[in-house]
């Protein structure tokens, strides 16, 4: 019973950390139709910035998160202008190659600057201690991740479904030409959603660092995991991404607890079964090219 509870809580927190990182990828893929394999690289950059801020500059955890999000977006925006904008309407293969190339470059440069060692992010004492929930105690950090995940999910849903920006974004996705004709500045909308996705990935990289440790190969090691989560959930769907993260997180954590020597075997088996059963993902949008 105790094991079952701790597996459930761990799986839930891990799934939420995955969700915060992956939802940005799901948005760029579903709404802007870019297969951005470099998404994990941006999460990693966020983690590095936060680690540098908390450990070397001695700033607080909150500052670390904010700095990581701003810094990563500042790095990513020129890349959007110079590289991504040229592949928005190219084939999937071109997008995959270009973004793998960016990932490789980021790994090489990161290692050159920071070295191959693992970086940690200092947690504030409130989050490092276990919190008593009455029936059992749980690491404060886990609760923080879970709450952040829920806030991100709710905030995104509100942004996309209930605000003017969301309406413009959905219009640009449905029909770029018509949206432009109506006076919507689609380049700005795209750049803003790209920046939002990157900021979320940096946030996820920082809060998820306890589950996915920050090191140069982070970008490549978890690239597959992130990609899998998005395609299982169905690109562009918040609810689908949430379901996929919780499902795959649960399978992954349970597998690690109960059958550690099988590694990721069950994770990938589940992926193949789900994708075969739902080729468009659990809740994929039906693509409607204009």
């Amino acid at each position, binding site marked *: 019973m105790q094991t079952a509870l701790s597996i459930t809580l761990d799986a839930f927190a891990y799934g939420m950390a995955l969700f915060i990182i992956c939802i940005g990828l799901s948005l760029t*893929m579903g709404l802007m139709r870019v*297969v951005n394999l470099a998404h994990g690289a941006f999460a990693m950059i966020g983690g590095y910035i936060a680690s540098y801020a908390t450990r070397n500059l001695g700033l607080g955890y909150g500052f670390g998160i904010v700095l990581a999000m701003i810094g990563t977006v500042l790095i990513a925006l020129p890349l959007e202008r110079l*590289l991504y904008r*040229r*592949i928005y309407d*190219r084939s*999937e*293969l*071109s997008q*995959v*190659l*270009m973004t*793998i*190339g*960016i*990932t*490789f*470059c*980021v*790994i*090489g*440069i990161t*290692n*050159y600057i920071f070295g*191959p060692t693992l970086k940690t992010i200092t947690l504030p004492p409130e989050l490092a201690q276990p919190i008593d929930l009455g029936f059992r105690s749980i690491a404060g950090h886990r609760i923080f991740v879970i709450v952040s995940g829920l806030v991100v999910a709710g905030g995104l849903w509100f942004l996309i479904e209930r605000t003017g920006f969301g309406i413009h974004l959905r219009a640009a996705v449905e029909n770029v030409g018509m949206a432009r004709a109506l006076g919507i500045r689609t380049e700005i909308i795209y750049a803003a959603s790209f920046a939002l996705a990157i900021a979320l990935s940096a946030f996820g990289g920082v809060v998820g660092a306890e589950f996915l440790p920050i090191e*140069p190969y982070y970008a490549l090691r978890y690239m*597959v995991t992130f*990609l*899998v989560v*998005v*395609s*299982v959930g169905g*690109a562009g769907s918040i609810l689908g991404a949430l379901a996929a993260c919780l499902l795959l997180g649960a399978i992954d954590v349970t597998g690690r607890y109960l059958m550690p*020597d*099988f*590694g*990721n*075997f069950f994770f*990938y*088996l589940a*992926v*193949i079964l789900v*994708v*075969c059963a739902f*080729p*468009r*993902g659990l809740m994929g949008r039906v693509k409607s090219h204009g």
Partner: protein
Amino acid sequence: MAEASIRNAATRPAPLLRDLLALALVALGGLAGYLLFPDNLAFLTRLISVALLVLSLDLVVGYCGIASLGQASLYGAGAYAAGIACLNGVTEPFLLVLIGAAAGAVTGLLMGAVMLRAHGLPQLVLSIAIVQLLHEAANKASWLTGGSDGLSGMIPAPLFGVFEFDLWGRSAYLFGLGLLLVVFAILRLIVRSPFGMLCRGLKEDPLRISALGIYAFPVLLKMFVISGAVAGTGGALAAIATQVVGLDSVSFELSANALVMLVLGGIGHLYGALIGTVIFMALEHVVAAANPFHWMTLVGAVLIAIVLFAPRGLSGTLDQFAGLLTRQGGRTGR
């Protein structure tokens, strides 16, 4: 456009002649490698086995338009099948290659059957999931595959009963070169056959092909089987030549590298696969030995440059240059 392609066809040498020329070039290049780098034959043999993998990937990506990041599962299946057979007393090298090709073909059948269910991104993810699944399975089934230690201690019988697979790797290299030539010749015939044209048609315009009354699934599945046989041949060659089969032969990294090599050389030409493999592996041999992280940065930069400036790969760009030089217009009407 049509006029230009007719003129092109008239001035171009006959296809058979071109094929013989291409084969002669490959053979010449191979022999030059043998004479120029007699101390690096083990590396060159590995290069040939990877070239077979990249050729097999070209069949799927270049002729069917299916992006795959899991091609190494076919290569690994061939390598492990040949290795296991060799450890269990089947030592005749040609038989081992056939076993590897058969194992690759069967794996290709399964992989194709799974991958063809989806399209686009989910398809790509399926290919990754398959190679990771096989990787974990090979790691877990250590009684069969040696787990993370890999298989070792295979001793293939001498080639034709005369030429031993010795430390210098001369017979292994020439054996590999011969295999490559045979496979390359067969693939040239296949991609120009009606079946090869049909695959190409499915890549260019699937709707139109299905309007002609053709069901795509079995055609593409057939190409997956052929591709598996080629990749399996490469794997078996690696097993025979290095006498070791490791977990890295079924890895996502090898699959991704194969795709990079293919794109570097240019997709959909077959010879692009060879050019890409030679350049990539030669560079890797030099740079990665100095610093593996610089190597990653370099590969990344090259990938970005290819997508931006040479989307048709080196061979496509060469074609363009050749076209400009002979004033036939850059685009060959593909």
